[in-house]
C-alpha cells in the first residue's frame, strides 16, 4: 500500500493529465482509463496464454509430442477452436477503443458551434503573449505568461506562433495543441475546478524550451471579471528614477500602458508584479528575482533574446522597485 500511495502521488498536482479539472481533460482522462483497462485486459490474457503454454510444456517434458492425443492429423483441434475466439476478443477490444476515441473526439469539439470567450495566445521564443478581447474598446487587453479562465465557462483559445512551432499544453484543463507559424489553431477549454495550474510548451522550440511555462488560474466568473478589469486598467503615469531608466532602455521592447512605454517585442509589463511568475515560469515573482532577471537574463535563461542592460546598480535597483509597484 505505501508503494502504491507513492506511485499515485505523482498523478495529482498542478501539471497532470491524470488529475483533470476541466471538461476536455475529463474526456481525455476517460479515454485514457478505457485504453488502460482494455489494453491491460489484452496484456493479461496474452501473458496468461504464454504462461499456460510454458506450464504445459514443462508438465509434458519427456513425452513424445507426436503422440499427443489432441493432435489429429498434425492439426491441433483445440487451437483451431480457440484461436478465432482469441482473435475475436482482440478485435472487439480494439473496436471498443476506436469507439471510445470517436466519442472522446466528439466531446472535445462539442462546444465548437457555440460562441465562446476568445483569448489569443501567441508563442514566442520563449514566452507566451496572452490577449483578451476588450468589450469596451474592441481592442485587446494584453498580458503575458499567465492565463486566467472563468470557472464553468467555455473559452476559445486562438493559438498562433510568432517564430517557430510551439505547443500549448495545460494538462489539467485540456490536451495539447501545436502553435504553428502562419496558421491559427483553436482549442476550446471549459475549466471546472478552481485553482492554479501550470502550462508548458510541449514542442521543442529552442534552447529555453524547458523554461517556457506559464501559470493558469481557474477562478469563479466574478473574480475573473474583476481580474480582467484590473488588467485592462492602465498603469499610473511614470515618475521617478526607475521609470526614467525604464523609458531610456527597456521601453524599446516592453510596453507599460499609461506610462508611455510601447515596445512590442517583449512581454507587456503593465501589471507585471501582479503575476505569479517571471520569465515564463522560470522564477517566482519577487522584487529580488525581478532585479536578478534584469541584471543577467542570460545567466537565468541562456540564449534568451532579452539582453543584459548595463544599468548602474542604483538604476537597476530603481527599475526593479518601479516594476514591483506595477500591480
Amino acid at each position, binding site marked *: 500500500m505505501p508503494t502504491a500511495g507513492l506511485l499515485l502521488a505523482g498523478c495529482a498536482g498542478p501539471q497532470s493529465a491524470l488529475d483533470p479539472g476541466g471538461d476536455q481533460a475529463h474526456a481525455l482522462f476517460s479515454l485514457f482509463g478505457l485504453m488502460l483497462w482494455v489494453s491491460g485486459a489484452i496484456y493479461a490474457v496474452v501473458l496468461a496464454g504464454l504462461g499456460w503454454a510454458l506450464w504445459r510444456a514443462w508438465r509434458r517434458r519427456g513425452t513424445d509430442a507426436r503422440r499427443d492425443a489432441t493432435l489429429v492429423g498434425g492439426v491441433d483441434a483445440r487451437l483451431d477452436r480457440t484461436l478465432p475466439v482469441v482473435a475475436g476478443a482482440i478485435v472487439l477490444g480494439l473496436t471498443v477503443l476506436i469507439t471510445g476515441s470517436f466519442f472522446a473526439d466528439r466531446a472535445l469539439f462539442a462546444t465548437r458551434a457555440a460562441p465562446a470567450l476568445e483569448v*489569443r495566445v*501567441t508563442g514566442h521564443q520563449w514566452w507566451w503573449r496572452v490577449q483578451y478581447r476588450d468589450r469596451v474598446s474592441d481592442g485587446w487587453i494584453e498580458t503575458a505568461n499567465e492565463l486566467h479562465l472563468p470557472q464553468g465557462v467555455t473559452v476559445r483559445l486562438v493559438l*498562433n*506562433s*510568432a*517564430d517557430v512551432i510551439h505547443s500549448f499544453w495545460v494538462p489539467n484543463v485540456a490536451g495539447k495543441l501545436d502553435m504553428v*507559424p*502562419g*496558421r*491559427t489553431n483553436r482549442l476550446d477549454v471549459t475549466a471546472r475546478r478552481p485553482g492554479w495550474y501550470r502550462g508548458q510548451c510541449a514542442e521543442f522550440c529552442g*534552447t529555453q524550451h524547458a523554461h517556457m511555462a506559464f501559470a493558469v488560474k481557474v477562478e469563479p466568473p466574478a473574480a475573473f471579471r474583476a481580474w480582467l478589469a484590473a488588467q485592462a486598467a492602465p498603469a499610473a503615469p511614470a515618475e521617478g528614477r526607475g521609470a526614467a531608466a525604464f523609458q*531610456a*532602455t527597456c521601453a*524599446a*521592447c516592453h510596453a507599460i500602458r499609461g506610462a508611455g512605454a*510601447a*515596445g*512590442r*517585442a517583449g512581454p507587456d509589463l503593465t501589471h507585471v508584479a501582479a503575476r505569479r511568475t517571471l520569465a515564463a515560469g522560470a522564477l517566482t515573482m519577487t522584487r529580488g528575482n525581478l532585479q536578478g532577471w534584469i541584471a543577467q537574463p*542570460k545567466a537565468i535563461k*541562456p*540564449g534568451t*533574446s532579452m*539582453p*543584459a*542592460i*548595463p544599468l548602474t546598480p542604483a538604476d537597476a535597483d530603481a527599475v526593479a522597485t518601479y516594476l514591483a509597484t506595477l500591480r
Partner: protein
Amino acid sequence: MAIGRGGATTAVLAALLLAACGREARDIGPSLGETPPRGGSDPRIPYYQDNVYQVAQGGRYFGWYGCVACHVEGAVGVRDLGDGRWQHGGGFDQVYAAIARRHGALNYAARIPAEPLWQLTAYVRDLPQHTPEKRRRLAIDQVGEPHGRSWSGPVR
C-alpha cells in the same frame, strides 16, 4: 605514424561535413560583446560575423528595434543597406559606430545594449550578400515578429 589513404579521405570528408556545424554554434557562456569593438581587428568580430546564429539574432533585433521602419525593402540612398556602399566605411567597427552614434536623436548607443549592437552590425554587414530569394525567405520568416511599436499578430 602512417595513415592509410582511406583513413585520410574519411577524415577530410568528416572535417568537411562538420565544418558547417560550427557556423551555427550557440554559446551559452557570458556574452563576449559587452563593450564596443576596439578597431577593425578586434578578435571578437569573427565570432559574431561568421556565426549564422548571431547574424540571425541581429535580423530579429533589426525588426524589434524598429530599424525596418526606415530601412525597408526598396529603400534608396543611405537607407538602402543592401547595396554594399557604406558612407562611413564598411569595417565592422565603422558600421557599429554608424548604428550607435549616427542616428541623431534615436541615440542607439544609449538605448540598445552592446550585444544586440554587435549582432545588428553583423546582420547589416551580411545584407549585401543576400540574394532576392533569401530576402523573400527572411521576410516570410519574420512576418509574425513584432516590428518596433507594432505587432499585428502572425496571421493577417
